[in-house]
C-alpha cells in the first residue's frame, strides 16, 4: 500500500493539508475543553496588509524585486475560546515585464494580479477577556485566481488548484491600551480590538507552477458577538 511514508518525506503541501485535517477534527471535539468562565466573542473581522514573497524562482528578474504588496480581509467564527473557522480573501498586484519571443530578452509590460481565497482553522491561546497577547497558529486550504494583463495582447486568467496554507501570529489587545476607545465603538457590548502581526505560507499550483508564497502582514482584528 502506498502511504505518505512510502513516498519519503511529506511535501509542504501535504503537511499543510494534514495539519488542516487535524485542526478540523480538533474544532469538532474542542467544545469539551471550552473555558467555562470566559467566553470569547463569536465573530471576528480582520483587515491586514503587508508583503507577499512569491515562491516563483525568477520573480525578481521580471518584476524588479522579489516581493509585492498584499492586502487581505477575512472573517471567522469561534467555536470556542481556542478554535475558530475563517475565510480570507487576499489581493496582490505587481507590474513587470515578460520575455519576447522564444525566451528571448525582457520586454513588454505585464500586470500580474493574484487573488487567493483560503478557508482555515486557527488555534488561539485566548484565556480571558483582558488577555494582552494572543498567539495563534492555523492551517487551511487555498486556491487563487490569477490575471495577467499584457500590453497589446489578450489577458490570461484562470484559477489555480486547491492547495494548503499555514499561518501563525501574535495579537495585542487594544482594549487594554485604550479602554475608552473600545467603549466608544461598541459601548456596553462585548467587543475586542486587536492589532497583530502574522506570517503565512501557502501553495496553490496551476500546470505545476506554484503561485503561492509567504506573506508577512500587519493587521487589525475586531471581535464581537
Amino acid at each position, binding site marked *: 500500500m502506498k502511504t505518505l511514508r512510502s513516498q519519503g518525506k511529506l511535501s509542504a503541501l501535504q503537511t499543510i493539508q494534514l495539519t488542516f485535517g487535524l485542526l478540523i477534527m480538533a474544532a469538532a471535539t474542542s467544545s469539551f475543553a471550552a473555558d467555562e468562565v470566559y467566553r470569547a466573542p463569536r465573530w471576528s473581522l480582520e483587515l491586514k496588509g503587508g508583503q507577499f514573497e512569491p515562491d*516563483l524562482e*525568477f*520573480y525578481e*528578474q*521580471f*518584476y524588479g524585486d522579489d516581493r509585492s504588496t498584499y492586502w487581505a480581509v477575512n472573517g471567522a467564527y469561534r467555536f470556542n475560546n481556542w478554535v475558530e473557522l475563517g475565510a480570507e480573501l487576499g489581493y496582490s498586484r505587481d507590474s*513587470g*515585464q*515578460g*520575455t*519576447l*519571443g522564444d*525566451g*528571448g530578452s525582457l*520586454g*513588454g*509590460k*505585464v500586470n*500580474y494580479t493574484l487573488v487567493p481565497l483560503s478557508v482555515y482553522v486557527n488555534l488561539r491561546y485566548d484565556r480571558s477577556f483582558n488577555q494582552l497577547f494572543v498567539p495563534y497558529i492555523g492551517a487551511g486550504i487555498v486556491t487563487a485566481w*490569477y490575471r*495577467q494583463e*499584457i*500590453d*497589446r*495582447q*489578450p*489577458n*490570461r*486568467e*484562470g*484559477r489555480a488548484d486547491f492547495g494548503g496554507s499555514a499561518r501563525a501570529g501574535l495579537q495585542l489587545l487594544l482594549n487594554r491600551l485604550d479602554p475608552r476607545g473600545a467603549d466608544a465603538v461598541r459601548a456596553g457590548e462585548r467587543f475586542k480590538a486587536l492589532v497583530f502581526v502574522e506570517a503565512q505560507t501557502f501553495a496553490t499550483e*496551476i*500546470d505545476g*507552477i506554484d*503561485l503561492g508564497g509567504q506573506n508577512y502582514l500587519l493587521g487589525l482584528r475586531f471581535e464581537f458577538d
Partner: protein
Amino acid sequence: MNLNNRCLWAASALLVGCDAVAATLGVPGDFATIQAAINAAAPGDTVEVSTGTYRENLVLADNVDVRGVEVARTFLEARDTELPVVTGTGVADLLFANFTIRSSADGVRLIDSTGITLASNVFDALDGIGVFVGTLSSVEIVNNVFYRNNVSIDRFTTAAPVTNNIFSENSFTVASSSIIPISPDFDVSYNCFYRNSDLQQSGVDAGLGTIFQVGNPQFVDPAAQDFHLRAASICIDAGTGNDVIDDSVADIGAYGGEFADAMPFPVNQPVASDASSSNPIVYRIDVEWDANLDYRVTNDAMPGGYKLWYELNQSGPPYNGDDAGGGTEPSPVPVGNVTTYTLENLAPDASAPSVPTLVSASPQNNSVRLDWNRAAGAGSYRIYYGVAEVTENTVSVGDVTSSQVTGLENGTEYSFAVSALVQPTYYLSVTAVDNTTNRNESDFSAEESIAVGSPVEGLLSNVLKATPDEVTPYPDLPDEGCFIATAAFGAEWMAEVRVLRQFRDRFLLTNLPGRAFVGWYYRAGPRAAHFLQTHAYIKPGVRASLWPLIVFAAFLLGAGPVEVFGAGLCSLILLLVLVRRRIRWPELSRSES
C-alpha cells in the same frame, strides 16, 4: 478732493522746502492691499490701484487720494459684507475715484468727513446704500453711475451736492433717512435718470433736482461692467463743467468730468482664421473682432478705430511683428474703424528646434514603445522607422515624449528615430482707439493665436533598433478563458475557440450585459468544462450545438455595421415569433381539449 486745498498744500510744502513731496503708491506693485497702501501713505499722497478685483473693507485716511486706473476693470468688493466697502470717519480732503463697487451691501459710508470728492465710480447692484453721507460731512458726489442699487444715496447733510451722475434702475435714487430729512431735490443737478422705482409715476420716468435728463443712458454693456456711453445716449455732453477726456462739455456718468479715466474698454478676444492660398503660396490671416460701441470709438462723424497687433512665434506684448504686407505693415497695424482685417503676405518661419535624444525603443507584441527627451523649441515630433532604412515610414505625434508604434511584424528588426518640429504661429491682439486728440487706447484684448505655414523640422535623433515580438508573461500561466469550447474542441488555439474568444472581446466585454454574462460564464464554465473532460462522449454533441453560435459569431466578426444591424433585426423578429407562438400554445391546447 477740494482742489484748492490740495494746491495750497502743495504750494506750502514747496515754500517750506520740506521733503513732503506727494508720492504715488501703487497697488499691487508697491503694496499687496489697498488698505496697506492707505496706511503707509502720507498726507498728500495718492494710492493708485491697478486693474483687478480687491476684496477689502477700506478705511480712508486724511488727505490721501485713492484712485483706480480704470473704472471698468478695477473692482472693489467687501471682504466683510456686514461693513461698507469704504468707510471714512472724521477724514478730510481726499478724492475717491475710478472704482466699480459691486457684490456688496453698502458702498461708501462717510461720517464727520469734510472736503471729500466721490467721482467717476460705478455703484453696481448693491443691496444696501451706495453712498451714505452722515451729518457734519461735506461730500461732492460727481460723475458716478448708480446702477441697480437698493438705495443710491442717503444724505444726512445739505453739504452733499449731487452732480453729473447717472441713476439707472435703482429702487431709491437720492434718499434721506435723517430725522430731519433733506429734500431729494436739494442741490441735485445735471443728472440723468432712467427707470428708478421711486421716481416712476404710473410707469412714467421722472428726474430730481434741476437741469436733469430722463431716458435710457445707453450704456455699452452693463453686464460686462462697461458703462461707457453709446452714440445715442442722452448723457453725452449733458453735464456741467469740463470733460477731461475730450475737452468738451462734461458727459454725465463715470466717463465724463475732470476725473474720468480715458481708456476705452478693451476689445473682446479676436478670432483669427488661416486664409492662405496654395497656388501660388501666399500666407494671410483673416482677423475678426467685436466692435467697441463706446461713442468715442464709433462716432460716425469722427470715428476712432482699432489697432491690430501681431508677432510671429512670440506670445504676449509687445507684439513686435514686422512681416505683414511683405514687411510694409509692422505691428501695430492701424486698421481704422473696421472689425475685420486681413494680414497679407506674411512670412511664417521658425528656428529649427534642437535634436531630441531617443532614449529607449521597447519591443512589444506587434509594436514598439519609444521614449525620447524633450527637444528645446519643439511643438510636436515625428517618428521615423523602417526595416532597411529608418526613413521608410513616418508617424506624426503631438507634443509628447513617448509613443507606441503599432502594426509592426513580430520577429523583424526595425530602426527608429525621432525628430522635433515647430509650427510657425502668429499671436494677435486688438486695441480700441478713441477719437479724441489724445487718441486714447484701450488695453490689449485677450490674445488669439493661429498656426500658419509648414512646420519646421529639426534633425533626426540617434537611431535605436528593436524587434517586436509576442510577450510571454512570467509565470507563464494558461488562459482558461473559453472553458467549454476549449474542452469541446480540444485546445484553445483551435480556430473555433479563437472565433468565440474574439466574439467575447468584441461583442460581450464592450457592454454591461455582455460583461455580466461573461462573469457568470467564468464562474460556471470551469465546472462544465471539467464535466466535459471527464465525459468525452458528450463532446461531439456539445461541438454540434456550439456550431451555430460559432457561425453566427464568425459572421458578426466579419460583418460591417449594416450586416450586424440586419442580423440583430432578424433575431428580434425570430424572438417575437417565438414569443407569440409560446403565448398561443395554451390557447391551442385549450381549443384542442
